[in-house]
């Protein structure tokens, strides 16, 4: 009887532990064809090669293989080209380009198992990476000479307690993409500069039976990003406003930013596709690229996708006009930056690669393919689709986007309520969920 009871308890614990054990994250990266030096030998170094062994190999003319992990799938092909060029100039070096669509998860799991890639793209302005910098996961490159080639605004944004751990290559800007062919076919020749003009253009498109605004509301990640970027445009200092909510000095329903966010979305939902709640980002981007929509909210990184979907697409990115008619500033974020991990197999080669990335011709090559505004001195930004954004950056009419200031996890906590609002337009429920999300996250941080 006792044994029977014990076996019931043991079996129950077993079932429970299988659930716990199943909670570990998967670490899936896609390995793309390697960029290899033409002079590289066939010799394959072992996976778990030590740093010293790597240096020894390079010194003795052997082959060093460094992994370059990219968390931005759209830059994989250009980085393969650049890596191949680097290998050509550095015989005996092999750069293995890998990529993942789920950057934070992969980086977290690899850091936990002490298997960070040798080189990778980081986001130095984000808290997640700043914590990793402080913990010594990445090499401190504060004294590197080539950092002097980087634009001072970008350097300021990537500063971590007075030190630098990444080379910022580009700044992403966020706004509204306009499909100029669609607009032109409906008699609209210029992108709107005020909210009223935007709504008037949407009216024109709607009257002509065209989907004016593509809003991929099924994609909760996109909803979160749209909320964060546009809330920042409405109020450049949302951190303080939300802090008041967290401290009980204000209620979410009285927040001017949250109210304006609801107002403008209510406006735009009049001009979007019927099935906007069922639309993913990829689908919306494809529809937009192929002329099935006039406007779409996104950042400079979307150009590569648009051109891939339709090389002839005639698009233009312009600043999101302030819905209350106040001055509009463009949200920017440090986009691609490169860092080398402290476990890099050959730090000398890793640092050389970072320097290589800041070389004018390489930075130009990268900038032309990436589409984001380059931060490297001497690089000409000649992407006509983003001319408005370049002007905003040059004039300093920008602000570092809110995600870098918000307490960790706020964007992911608030997004469910945002998505529900876009589906049912229930303001009370939205304010209630926002109140709870803000209070919870501010209390946790």
């Amino acid at each position: 009887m006792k044994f029977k009871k014990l076996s019931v308890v043991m079996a129950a614990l077993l079932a429970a532990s299988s659930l716990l054990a199943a909670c570990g994250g998967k670490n899936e990266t896609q390995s793309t064809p390697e960029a290899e030096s033409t002079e590289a030998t066939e010799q394959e170094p072992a996976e778990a090669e030590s740093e010293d062994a790597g240096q020894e190999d390079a010194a003795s003319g052997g082959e060093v293989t460094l992994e370059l992990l990219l968390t931005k799938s759209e830059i994989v092909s250009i980085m393969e080209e650049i890596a191949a060029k680097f290998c050509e100039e550095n015989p005996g070096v092999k750069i293995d380009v890998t990529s993942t669509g789920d950057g934070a998860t992969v980086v977290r799991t690899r850091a936990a198992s002490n298997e960070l890639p040798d080189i990778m793209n980081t986001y130095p302005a984000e808290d997640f990476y700043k914590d990793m910098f402080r913990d010594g996961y990445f090499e401190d490159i504060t004294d590197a000479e080539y950092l002097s080639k980087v634009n001072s605004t970008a350097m300021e944004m990537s500063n971590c307690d007075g030190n630098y751990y990444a080379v910022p290559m580009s700044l992403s800007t966020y706004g509204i993409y306009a499909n100029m062919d669609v607009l032109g076919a409906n008699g609209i020749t210029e992108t709107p500069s005020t909210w009223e003009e935007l709504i008037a253009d949407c009216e024109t498109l709607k009257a002509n039976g065209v989907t004016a605004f593509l809003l991929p509301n099924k994609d909760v990640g996109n909803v979160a990003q749209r909320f964060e970027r546009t809330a920042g445009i409405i109020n450049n200092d949302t951190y303080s406003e939300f802090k008041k909510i967290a401290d009980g000095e204000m209620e979410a329903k009285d927040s001017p930013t949250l109210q304006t966010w609801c107002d403008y979305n209510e406006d735009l939902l009049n001009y979007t596709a019927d099935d906007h709640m069922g639309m993913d980002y990829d689908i919306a981007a494809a529809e937009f690229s192929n002329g099935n929509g006039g406007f779409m909210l996104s950042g400079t990184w979307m150009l590569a996708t648009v051109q891939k979907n339709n090389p002839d697409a005639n698009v233009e990115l312009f600043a999101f006009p302030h819905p209350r008619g106040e001055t509009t500033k463009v949200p920017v974020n440090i986009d691609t930056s490169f860092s080398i991990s402290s476990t890099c197999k050959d730090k000398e080669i890793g640092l050389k690669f970072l320097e290589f990335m800041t070389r004018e011709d390489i930075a130009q090559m990268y900038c032309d393919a990436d589409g984001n505004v380059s931060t490297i001195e001497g690089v000409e930004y000649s992407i006509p689709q983003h001319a408005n954004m370049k002007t905003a950056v040059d004039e300093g009419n920008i602000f570092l986007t809110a995600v870098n200031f918000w307490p960790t996890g706020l964007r992911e906590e608030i997004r469910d309520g945002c998505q529900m609002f876009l589906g049912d337009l229930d303001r009370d429920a939205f304010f209630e969920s926002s109140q709870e999300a803000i209070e919870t996250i501010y209390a946790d941080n």
Partner: protein
Amino acid sequence: MGEKKKSGRSKRDRGRNGAFLLFTAPGFFLYSFFFIMPVIMGIYYSTTDWDGITKSYNFIGFDNYLKIFRTGQFTDALFFTIKYTVLLVVFTIVFGLGIAMLLNRKIKGRTFFRGIYFIPAVLSSLTVGLIFNKICYYIIPVIGKFLHIQAISQNPLADKNLAMWVILFVNLWQGLCIPTLLFLAGLQSVPTDLYDGAALDGASAWDIFRYITVPFILPVVSVVFVLTLKGGLMVFDYIKAMTEGGPGNTTRSVAMLIYKHGFTQNKYAFAIAEAIFMGLVVAAISAVQIYFTDKKKAV
């Protein structure tokens, strides 16, 4: 003489026990290292404020456990998970058994159909989820509009009342294969002479099913029940691929919530605490299930 025999036996028993121990040891150590150890480490981390990245963290006792019910998120996710699991278990047993009984009949192309029904099992659940994600956007609304069915004239995954049913359908479409196979094997183990005898005695089809088929396949039902229960309580892949828990949080399972807290909000220790709590819930459910299964066997 008797004593001699006894000591001889105990010596032999000791030798046999030693061999048993030797054979058990590798499994025991592997299981302990890869299973028990992570669970113990998980329990330890759940009492800290570790964010999954930083090398330093503080011991905070049971704060994470107390925070689980601070908002309604966990309760909502738990309620969804249990509802989903109950539906999944019921439908799996009913449809799995139904299909198995059809496939057990002497119909034309029986082997072909048996093969066809098994195909979804070889696909990964994430792939199936992504495929149905596209079907729901590109195909279902077209059919809905053609048939003038308002509810499916738009992507059903975007409808908070339909999304769970679509996920359940996809889960069943793929998940029925193995249970059906198990049921089929169970049905084939029923001696045919019992059916013949019952038919001669004039038993109805329902009586034959109730008094002959069911008792024979009861152990299989029990296995399917446990497997499906586990699958339902841990559902993640389909939801991640199809709705990411949306619209809003209407299809968010506990596993999705744990993922959200651990991997998107850096609340790693808190996520582990939630996982352990969920583990206890699963343990309780399993204990009840095992108790009843044992009781049934005793009868």
